[in-house]
C-alpha cells in the first residue's frame, strides 16, 4: 500500500486525469436524461437494459441472472422465436466494442545496463479494445444457445498489433430436463444440460465483470512459475517472465469445450436460490503446437438467502477443479487434440457475496491451487522434468466492492468499483526459485456512467485505473510494477 501511494504521488498526472474525468462525468451526467436499452433481449422483450443489468451491461442483476439460469427464458410465449407478438425487428445479434485512450507503464524492468537500466517503459494511445459479436437466445422452447465471435482485426488494438479471431463461446443448452426423469414441475429449471464451448460458472463471472476488458480477475488467470502481467499488457521480455515452466491450465475463465449439468431451484426456507453446475471439460491447453486431450472436472454450488445475492440478499458458494493437463506432444501424429502425458492439478475455492440497500454489492472468493510436480518440465514441451521439482501450491483471492447508486448528481446510470486481488505462493514448483516469486497484489478502481442516444443502444463512459505488482519478476530480482489507465466509451447495440 505504501509503495502504491508513493507511485500515485509520483504519477500526479494520472491522479489529476482521474479527477478531471470524474468532473467531466459529473457535468455530463447533468445533461443526459436516462436511458438504457439494448441488445437482442432488450429488443425482443422491449426491456430497458437495467431490467437485467446493473445498471447497464455487462454485470447482471438478480433478475438477469435468473433469466440466464433459465436458459434465457421468461417462461412465457414471448420467449419463442416464432411468437407472433415479437418485435418485428428482432434479430438475435448484438455487437460490443470499447474505444478510448489507454496508457500502460512497466517499471523496475531490471534492464542490466545502458541508459534505460532500471527505467520505466510507458506507452499510450487512442484505440479500441476488441469487437464482440454476440448471439444468445432460444432455438425452441427449452432449447437455448449462445455464440460469441471475436473477428480477427488487422487494425492495431491499442498498438499491440493485429488481433486473432476466436470463438470464445458456442453452445447449446437443453433446459427443464427433469420433466423426463420424473422430477420437478414444468419450468423448474432443476436439470439442464449444456454442450459446446462456454465460460464455466465461475464463483463470479469474469466475462460479466465491468473490468474484464482491461483488468481481469487475477486468480482466474494466474499460473505458478510465470510473472502475472495482466492479459492486456503487451509481452515484455525485460521481465523475468518465467522462472519455470508449468503446463497447468493457464486460465480458468477462458471458454472451455465441455458439457455441463446445471440447475437452479428456489429455496423457500432461505427465500433464495440453490444453484449447481457440474462440468467435464476437454483440456485443450496447447503443448508445443498440439492441443491436448486431457480432461478436467469443475463443479460449483451456491446457496443464497433473501434474494439472489447480487442486488439483494446474500450468497455463499464453493467450487472445485480437478483434472489433467497434457505435458507431451504426440510423436505419432501432428493432429490437434492428441497431446499426452496428462498430469494432475486441482483448485478449490469458496466465495461469498453480500448486498446492502439494493445498491452495494461486496463479494469475493478465496482459492487454493495445487499443480503436480510432474507438470514442471525445464522448458516447453517434452522437456526433461527438472530435478528439484515439487508441487506448485499457491493461494489467492479477491474482494470487490460495487456501488450503483440509483441516482447520483441527479442522474442515474452510475457504477463504481474497487477490487483488490492477491496471490501468495506457498510452494514453488522449482525448489531453486525464491518462495515469494510471482506473488501478486493488484488494485483496480473503475467508474462507469451510462448515457444513451436511442432506445436500442447502450453506451457508457468507462474509466479505469489498475496498479499491480509481481514479486521478484524483474531481471535483477526486483519487483515489477504495472499500471494501466483507460478512459473511453464502451458501447453495445
Amino acid at each position, binding site marked *: 500500500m505504501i509503495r502504491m501511494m508513493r507511485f500515485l504521488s509520483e504519477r500526479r*498526472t*494520472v491522479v*489529476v*486525469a482521474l479527477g*478531471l474525468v470524474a*468532473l*467531466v462525468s459529473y*457535468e*455530463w*451526467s*447533468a*445533461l*443526459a*436524461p*436516462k*436511458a*438504457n*436499452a439494448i441488445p437482442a433481449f432488450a*429488443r425482443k*422483450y*422491449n426491456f*430497458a437494459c*437495467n*431490467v*437485467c443489468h*446493473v*445498471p447497464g451491461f455487462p454485470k447482471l*442483476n*438478480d*433478475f*438477469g441472472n435468473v433469466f440466464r439460469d433459465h436458459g434465457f427464458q*421468461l*417462461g*412465457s410465449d*414471448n420467449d419463442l422465436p416464432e411468437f407472433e407478438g415479437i*418485435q*418485428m*425487428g428482432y*434479430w438475435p445479434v448484438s455487437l460490443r466494442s470499447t474505444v478510448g485512450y489507454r*496508457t500502460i507503464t512497466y517499471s523496475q524492468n531490471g534492464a542490466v545496463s545502458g541508459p534505460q537500466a532500471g527505467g520505466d517503459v510507458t506507452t*499510450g*494511445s487512442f484505440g479500441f479494445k476488441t469487437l464482440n459479436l454476440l448471439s444468445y437466445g432460444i432455438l425452441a422452447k427449452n432449447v437455448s444457445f449462445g455464440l460469441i465471435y471475436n473477428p480477427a482485426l488487422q487494425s492495431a488494438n491499442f498498438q499491440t498489433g493485429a488481433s486473432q479471431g476466436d470463438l470464445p463461446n458456442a453452445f447449446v443448452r437443453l433446459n427443464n430436463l427433469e420433466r423426463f426423469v420424473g422430477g420437478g414441475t414444468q419450468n423448474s429449471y432443476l436439470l439442464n444440460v449444456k454442450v459446446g464451448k462456454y465460460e464455466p460458472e465461475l464463483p463470479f463471472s469474469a466475462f460479466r465483470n465491468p473490468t474484464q476488458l482491461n483488468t481481469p480477475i487475477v486468480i482466474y488467470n494466474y499460473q505458478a512459475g510465470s510473472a502475472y502481467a495482466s492479459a492486456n499488457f503487451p509481452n515484455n521480455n525485460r521481465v523475468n517472465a518465467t522462472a519455470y515452466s508449468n503446463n497447468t491450465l493457464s486460465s480458468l475463465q477462458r471458454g472451455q469445450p465441455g458439457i455441463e449439468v446445471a440447475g437452479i431451484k428456489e429455496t423457500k426456507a432461505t427465500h433464495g436460490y440453490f444453484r449447481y453446475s457440474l462440468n467435464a471439460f476437454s483440456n485443450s491447453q496447447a503443448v508445443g503446437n498440439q492441443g491436448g486431450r486431457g480432461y478436467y472436472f469443475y463443479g460449483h454450488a451456491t446457496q443464497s438467502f433473501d434474494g439472489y445475492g447480487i*442486488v439483494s440478499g446474500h450468497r455463499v458458494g464453493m467450487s472445485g477443479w480437478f483434472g489433467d493437463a497434457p505435458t507431451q506432444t504426440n510423436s505419432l501424429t501432428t493432429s490437434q487434440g492428441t497431446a499426452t502425458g496428462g498430469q494432475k492439478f486441482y483448485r478449490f475455492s469458496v466465495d461469498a457475496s453480500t448486498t446492502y*440497500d*439494493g*445498491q452495494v454489492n461486496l463479494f469475493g472468493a478465496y482459492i487454493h491451487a495445487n499443480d503436480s510436480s510432474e507438470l514442471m518440465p525445464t522448458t516447453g514441451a517434452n522437456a526433461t522434468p527438472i530435478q528439484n521439482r515439487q508441487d506448485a501450491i499457491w493461494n489467492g483471492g479477491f474482494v470487490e466492492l460495487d456501488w*450503483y447508486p*440509483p*441516482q447520483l*448528481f*441527479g442522474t*442515474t446510470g452510475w457504477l463504481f468499483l474497487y477490487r483488490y486481488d492477491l496471490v501468495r505462493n506457498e510452494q514453488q514448483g522449482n525448489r531453486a526459485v525464491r518462495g515469494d516469486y510471482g506473488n501478486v497484489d493488484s488494485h483496480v478502481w473503475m467508474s462507469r456512467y451510462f*448515457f*444513451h*442516444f*436511442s*432506445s*436500442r*443502444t447502450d453506451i457508457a463512459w468507462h474509466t479505469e485505473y489498475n496498479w499491480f505488482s509481481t514479486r521478484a519478476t524483474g531481471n535483477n530480482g526486483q519487483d515489477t510494477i504495472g499500471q494501466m489507465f483507460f478512459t473511453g466509451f464502451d458501447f453495445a*447495440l
Partner: protein
Amino acid sequence: MSQFVLLLFLLAGIWLHQGCSAAPPHEPGPTRIVCGLCEETDRFVRLQSHPNRPGGEASGRFAHPFRLSSEDWIPVLASIQVQTRAAALVFFSTKQPAAPAFSPAEVEYLSVTLSKAFAEAGPEEWVVFGLSQPGASGITEMTTGGWFLEGSNLHLVLANHRCPVSMPGVRDLLARDPLTPNTGRAFDLAVGPHQQVVKDAETLASLFGPTPWELAIDYRAVLLASVAPSEGPAKVRDEGGEPQAGGSKKLSIEESLALLKRLRDQGLITDADYDVKKKQLLDRF
C-alpha cells in the same frame, strides 16, 4: 502524450460546464400527499415541486389550484393514446397501433385522485403520478409522469409507460422522481384532436438523448367533444391518418344536454360554446 490528453479533458470539462449551467440536475423538491386514496402501495398521485425543471420555478406559470370534477377527468384521460415503438434494426423503427395509455381501472383511479390533487396544488407544484402493475413477463411495469395546467391547456409529461422494472433501486427512484425517464423513448404519444406535442427547446442536453414526452391538451375542447353522442368517443389518428377509437362511452341526448349545462355552470366552457353545442345536439334530435 499524457499532457495533451489532460488538456483535452480540461477543455471538455470547461465546455460541458458552460453547457451544464443551463441544464442543472433534475432533483425533485418537497412532496405532498393530499388524500388517502392518493397513496397506495402500487400507485400514487402527489404534489411535488421540481425547481430545476423548466416551468418549475415559482413564476406563476402553473394555473394552480385547478378544479375539474373526477367525471370530467375521464374523457381527458381516455383521450390519451400511445404507440409502442418496434425497432427494426438500430436506426429505424415502426410503430404499433395506438392504444389507450391508461387502462379503465387506471382512468378511474386517476380521475378521482387528480381531481383532488389539482384542487390543492400550488402554482409551483406538479401533480405527479405513478402506476405499477405486473407485466406479461411477470415483472413490474411502471407508468410515471406528471401534470400541470398552463392557461387553458393541461400538460402531461409522460416519463415512463409500462416500463419493466426489476431493480428495487430503479423502482424507488421512479417512485421518488416520477418525471425521470428510465429508458429512451420506447413509445410515442399518438396525438389526437385537441392535443399537441410540446417540443423541447434545443439545448445541450438534447444532444445526449430524448427528454420525456410532453402533451398539451385543450381540456375544454375535449370535454365539449365528449358531449355530442353522434360524434362518438374522442378519436385519435394513427400514422396513416385513420381514426382510432378512444375510451369515452356514448351519451343519450338528455345526458349530453345535462353535461353541457354542467360544464357551462362550472365555467369550463363559454356561453358561446354552450349555445353552439346545444344547437348541434337539438338539430340531431
